């Protein structure tokens, strides 16, 4: 049963990922990306990591992809042919990747023959009743320092975005009415 679900989710992820880069309409690409995020969340559920599944949908599907869609719609790119028909470049990138994948897969097959599983099923510890608790405890004890570093990096990125997007209030050629009212205050 779990293998069936894994097969479904994995094949859908592959198919929709290809569609994201292959479709010519950027809105359709964004929608395929949405479907892909859902199936990644599904993979997390099959691994009994419900917390990660929910966070995956909230963060990627609920926030980031909406912003992508926003940009696509504001720019109103109906079709952009610049990035299509680049088969030669694609071939150059894909050939080594394909070879690498073959090598890895044959290695995985060998490992299965010697007894170790190529696709690990849900392990016993991931079946803990409350994976939210487990993630929280691991994150704030073992990985506390990386966690803090990541939050610092995100904070810097946030400040950077504000600095880049902000214009000086007194700037004369400022067409934005919102900033003008602020200057008046």
């Amino acid at each position: 049963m779990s293998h069936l679900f894994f097969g479904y989710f994995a094949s859908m992820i592959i198919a929709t990922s290809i569609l994201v880069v292959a479709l010519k309409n950027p809105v359709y690409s964004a929608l395929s990306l949405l479907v892909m995020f859902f199936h990644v969340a599904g993979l997390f559920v099959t691994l009994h990591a419900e917390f990660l599944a929910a966070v995956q949908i909230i963060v990627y599907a609920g926030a980031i992809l909406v912003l992508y869609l926003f940009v696509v719609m504001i720019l109103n790119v109906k079709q952009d042919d610049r990035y299509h028909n680049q088969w030669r470049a694609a071939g150059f990138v894909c050939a080594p990747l394909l070879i690498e994948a073959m090598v890895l897969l044959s290695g995985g097959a060998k490992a299965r023959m010697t007894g170790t599983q190529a696709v690990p099923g849900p392990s016993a510890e991931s079946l803990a009743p409350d994976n939210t608790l487990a993630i929280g405890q691991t994150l704030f004890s073992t990985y506390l320092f990386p966690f803090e570093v990541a939050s610092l990096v995100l904070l810097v990125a946030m400040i950077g975005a504000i600095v880049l997007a902000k214009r000086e209030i007194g700037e004369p050629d400022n067409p934005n009415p919102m900033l003008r009212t602020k200057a008046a205050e």
Partner: protein
Amino acid sequence: MVTEFGLRLAISLTQIGAVMCIVVLTVLILTLAERKVLGWMQDRMGPMEVGPYGILQPFADAIKLFFKEDIVPAGANKLIFTMAPILCLIPTFIGFAVIPWGPNWTFEVNGIIVKPFVISDINIGILYILAFASLAAYGIILGGWASNSKYSLLGGLRSAAQVISYELNVGLAIVGVLILAGSLSLVKITDGQTGWFWNWYIFALPAPQLFAFVVYVISVVAETNRVPFDLPEAESELVAGFFTEYSGLRFAFFFLAEYANMVLVSCVASALFLGGWNAPYPGTLMDLVGLSSWSWIESTMWFAIKTYSLLFLFFWLRATLPRLRYDQLMRFGWKVMLPIALANIVVTAIAVFIAQQIK
């Protein structure tokens, strides 16, 4: 094995059917109640023509929408135009799966444990609702884009910005409750609020979530695109916003989604902050009378009363407040609501920590 699976499926489908019926019925009542309440508040009668006292008005509306001509504008993206109302509706209805409607009872049918008052008690209940609530924006933004109309597009874009901004506040307002409850499951959160009404998380020591409740209510009003935050459908500037081009059944879907979403956020608010199905006194009156097996009626009624009071608040706000300007909306969300929600998390966390140390 197969019969067990079949039985489980049958029980779940029955529960889902029952919940769907209740929600759709509530939406029907709401459409009438809104017009009636607004009428009374504005010293009018409201709808009076269909049926005695106008109570059959929702059915007349539904039949009208059902038989209306279905128009797809020329130049619209047909696929996405058709998909958008469904994309709007599904996430809202899915959320009801984890709402506890009544006491946390369990009984066994042929070795299968059934919880009659919740379809599925999953351990990330509230995150599940937030995850699907965040998807409702897609229906709106795609509907606006696919209509190929500038009013719809502007409505859709406004909505996307608004929903993302206020969703953040909803999530942060809930965190305080989660710290107090120590669980993400709505069933466990409600169970933590039994006893007198001062055990409800809105009043509970060590950190009453009063501010979080206010932030939550204001933010969900914005998230459901209701007055005074209904900028995505501001009729004086955008005709009808993202559903300008929609008619007939597809319009009905958007309408249904908006009202079902109101019901959902009210249910979540009463489960998180107002004790869910718990009465304001310990136990139930039915227990005192000796009719323990009927106490679920009292519990579910308390849940209904709380939910309907919050829904009444939605109408009340609509009758009272004028619409905000877009920059006011954004400034209010990011500069007022967000800091309050963040401060609430800090204060709650410190209070809970101190309370644990004292114990």
